């Protein structure tokens, strides 16, 4: 649990800004309940921004769901490291949040289950407490953006990223994932760029052909590898 403590305060600061932004629309109770039962910052902000712009239940839930879809591959990844029967596994799987998951990953496909579950508790408390503070004292705190609170999330993820990128392959996957996200950001619904970026992890398969049997035939939707272009084909002769 101690491993999660350094992340409880950043989570709380972020939650304060959620509380400040959500309370005028949702009221105190709903704002705090949302943090308690959804407990996924990015998704809560996504759903809130839909509601604030006048959207209904379906688009708000869809926006939050798309952002949270990343927990699907993350849950699959952590699954073999969890304990117990299906119900206990499903419960332990609820502790998959970005920070704990990234900390618990050993980078080779294994996860430290105790770290995953333990580190989530302090963050949960911080998230709930921060939301309450923001919702109660939003008027006194003022504009969360003037306080720079919206920079906390990216800085937080950057800190996690630096801890994860060990070695050239991780760096390549990070760069490719970033490129995918930036390309999709203006054209895809919120959340999709993040989920799609996870496809960059497939580069782990590149260069494994020597160690494992080669993959079966290419999926039919995928074009065959381009033949080597003629020399200088992209410039005028």
């Amino acid at each position: 649990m101690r491993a999660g403590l350094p992340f409880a305060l950043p989570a709380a600061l972020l939650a304060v800004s959620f509380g400040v932004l959500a309370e005028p629309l949702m009221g105190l109770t709903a704002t705090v309940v949302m943090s308690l039962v959804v407990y996924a910052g990015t998704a809560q902000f996504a759903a809130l921004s839909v509601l604030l712009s006048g959207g209904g239940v379906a688009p708000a839930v869809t926006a939050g769901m798309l952002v949270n879809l990343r927990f699907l591959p993350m849950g699959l990844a952590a699954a073999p490291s969890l304990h117990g029967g299906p119900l206990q596994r499903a419960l332990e799987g609820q502790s998959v949040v970005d920070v704990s998951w990234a900390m618990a990953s050993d980078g080779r496909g294994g996860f430290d289950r105790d770290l995953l579950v333990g580190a989530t508790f302090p963050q949960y408390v911080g998230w709930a407490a921060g939301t309450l503070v923001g919702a109660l004292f939003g008027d006194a705190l003022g504009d969360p953006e003037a306080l720079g609170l919206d920079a906390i999330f990216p800085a937080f993820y950057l800190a996690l990223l630096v801890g994860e990128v060990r070695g050239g392959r991780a760096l390549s996957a990070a760069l490719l994932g970033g490129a995918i996200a930036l390309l999709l950001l203006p054209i895809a619904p919120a959340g999709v760029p993040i989920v799609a970026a996870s496809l960059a992890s497939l580069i782990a398969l590149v260069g494994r052909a020597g160690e494992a049997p080669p993959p079966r035939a290419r999926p039919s939707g995928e074009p065959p590898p381009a033949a080597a272009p003629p020399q200088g084909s992209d410039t005028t002769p």
Partner: protein
Amino acid sequence: MTSSTTIWLTIGLLALVTIVIKAVGPITLGNRTLSPPVAAVVGLLAPPLLTALVLVETVGDGEGGFSLDARLGGLAAAAIALALKLPTLAVVVIAAVATALLRALA
């Protein structure tokens, strides 16, 4: 005005969907171990996911577009703090302060 029904339905459904998404992997996979190629892919999931989160939270406007603003300065400050090996809490506080200062100056 958004009705309280809309708000509570959104909260309830989003909570449910999130629980289901997180439960799918643990329930379907059980304790089977991943084959080596799958484990290799899974081991490489975190860097691209985190990079995408950093970028979308820094230059996204939350509505499907780009917004280049003081958050970029905040992220740069965070990067410097990380290079100096400061603790995570200091990194996020420095990012917030830098962003707030840039906004105050603008």
